[in-house]
């Protein structure tokens, strides 16, 4: 179909459409009236389920796998865990009694004992973009520890460890730099995220061994690879937790996870999604039928005019384009109106429930791709319905259409 003929049909279709603006407006409104509630329904589904899942995924605690009791985990085991695709983060943990340090700041009078938490690149408890302790003298303080010590990122604190070694009480000091303060939800007690080197040195010192990195004296470390009694382990996503738990259990380990909670939320999500889809499918069917019926009826109404066009020499193929183009206008305008209505409703729903939401969360939410899906679906149904109607109009002999009253 050459460009000129397309242009001829497009021009006439547009002229007819705007000439009958009242009728066209009715079609557009009818379409928007069905589409807008569907979009709100979908927005609610995406928003409610989305923020529920997001909460679940965002909360690293839900991804943690904890060992119950202590074991012997060597470098090979940690290497193997690191290589698993379902593991996001794993770091060795020393004996919990040895993983403490006493901190003293210049601004607070009290000496504060804090837990040492081995950390490293990709620690899920430390938010993305936050600094990670990589040097042995760097720490990230938990929010409560920072408040008790009255320090902020960049401050220096004095860390000290005590032991009873060869009948004498010993104490060593190390100057630590607070490179960041973790968000309150990361760790509720007083704690310090530290590079594994510091945590290991603290355990060595307490065990009477030397920590050469810090110049602490003691007995030489035993030969052979070091084993750890525990670990901090996080699955890549909440969906990997159950499988990871099962595989560790199969290794003979006793582990604790949030898998039960995750299952509950996931099954709720599934049920909610099923309910939404049931409503959505019924709604979409109704939408397609109402759109199809109105466009089909419109083609019937215009049979005589279409016949006149054939009489002046428009081809059958061109005639089909006529209602299809008009349906396209209706679909695009209707979608536009529905989108505007939806955006208004979205704003009011989210504002209404703003007090019960966390920052950045919304009850009603559609992403740009959802709008695209809506327009593609609308245009698709409209074009199919009008195309079928137009084809029927084009198939009748032009003389039949002309003589209709």
């Amino acid at each position, binding site marked *: 179909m050459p460009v000129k003929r397309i242009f001829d049909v497009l021009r006439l279709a547009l002229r007819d459409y705007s*000439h009958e603006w009242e009728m066209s407006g009715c079609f557009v409104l009818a379409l928007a009236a069905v589409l807008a509630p569907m979009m709100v329904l979908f927005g609610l589904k995406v928003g409610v389920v989305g923020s529920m899942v997001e909460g679940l995924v965002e909360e690293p605690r839900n991804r943690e796998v904890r060992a119950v009791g202590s074991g012997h985990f060597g470098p090979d085991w940690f290497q193997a865990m690191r290589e698993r695709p379902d593991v996001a983060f794993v770091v060795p943990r020393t004996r919990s009694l040895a993983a403490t340090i006493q901190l003293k700041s210049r601004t607070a009078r009290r000496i504060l004992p804090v837990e040492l938490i081995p950390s490293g690149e990709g620690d899920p408890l430390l938010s993305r973009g936050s600094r990670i302790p990589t040097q042995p003298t760097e720490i990230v303080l938990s929010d409560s520890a920072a408040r008790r010590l009255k320090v902020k990122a960049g401050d220096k604190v004095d860390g000290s460890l005590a032991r009873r070694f060869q009948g004498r009480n010993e104490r060593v000091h190390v100057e630590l730099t607070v490179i960041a303060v973790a968000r309150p939800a990361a760790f509720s007690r007083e704690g310090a995220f530290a590079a594994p080197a510091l945590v290991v040195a603290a355990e060595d010192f307490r065990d009477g061994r030397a920590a050469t990195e810090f110049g602490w004296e003691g007995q030489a470390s035993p030969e052979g690879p070091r084993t750890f009694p525990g670990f901090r382990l996080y699955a890549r996503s909440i969906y990997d937790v159950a499988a990871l738990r099962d595989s560790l259990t199969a290794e003979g380990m006793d582990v604790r996870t949030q898998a039960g909670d995750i299952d509950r939320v996931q099954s709720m999500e599934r049920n909610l999604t099923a309910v939404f889809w049931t409503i959505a499918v019924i709604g979409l069917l109704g939408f397609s039928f109402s759109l199809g019926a109105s466009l089909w009826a419109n083609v019937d109404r215009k049979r005589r*005019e279409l016949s*006149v066009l*054939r009489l002046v*020499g428009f081809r059958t193929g061109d005639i089909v384009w006529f209602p299809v183009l008009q349906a396209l206008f209706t679909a695009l305008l209707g979608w536009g109106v529905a989108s505007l209505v939806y955006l208004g409703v979205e704003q009011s729903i989210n504002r209404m429930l703003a007090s019960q939401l966390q920052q950045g969360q919304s009850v009603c939410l559609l992403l740009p791709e959802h709008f695209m899906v809506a327009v593609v679906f609308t245009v698709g149904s409209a074009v199919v319905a009008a195309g079928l109607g137009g084809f029927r109009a084009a198939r009748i002999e032009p*003389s039949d259409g002309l003589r209709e009253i």
Partner: protein
Amino acid sequence: MEQEHSTASPVLIYHLRGVVKTREAKGSAFRLVVPSLQIALGEKIALIGQSGCGKSTLLDILALILRPTESAAFRFRPEPGASPLDISKYWKGKKLNWLGDLRKQRMGYVMQTGGLLPYLSVRENMTLSRRLLGMRDDGTVDSLAKALGIHRHMERLPGLLSVGERQRVAIARALAHRPSIVIADEPTAPLDPISAKKIMAIFMELVEQMNITVIVASHDWKHIQRLGLRRLAHHTHQKQDGAITETTVTG
């Protein structure tokens, strides 16, 4: 016209032989039979008869918008120098687009009422065919409008015009692209007798000036008798207890 008749073998625009169209409705059937019909280029033909006698059916067949049930021969010559085209072959081959193109280039059609696109101005309605054919404005449209007395309404929509004015626009549209033939189905039927007479006279004058063959259906011979049209003979009779109405047209 007298001259054309006097030539030994006039150049025919239409040549039909054994063309039949059967239409069936509940309990009754209608049959149009054309044993033989020859129309010469430039002729002015009148098809006279009461409504329901099959005039429109014949016109639609001649306008290539109605497919004959049977046809032994159906030839149409698009222009004087061209050789005749076998229309029945195109119907059989379902070449509807091809017939559409032929209609677009060679034919004008005036309907009994309306047939104008309500969303286009009078001028746009008149230039519709020219525009589709990519013809440039050469003043034909304006002189037609002047001749038909509708030049004051060129930029209006047809809905604002009287019935008589609309029929004038329809006539102008049928002539605007200088077709070989114009077919008019009772073009003046909705008008009062005085306007009807006047418009028909202008119409016939225009086709003569533009050397266009014309076929006009009408139920009133008196009106157009004096305009020099050749009347096609036809008779209608009922067969088989009125179940079939058959009209035979020859000419």
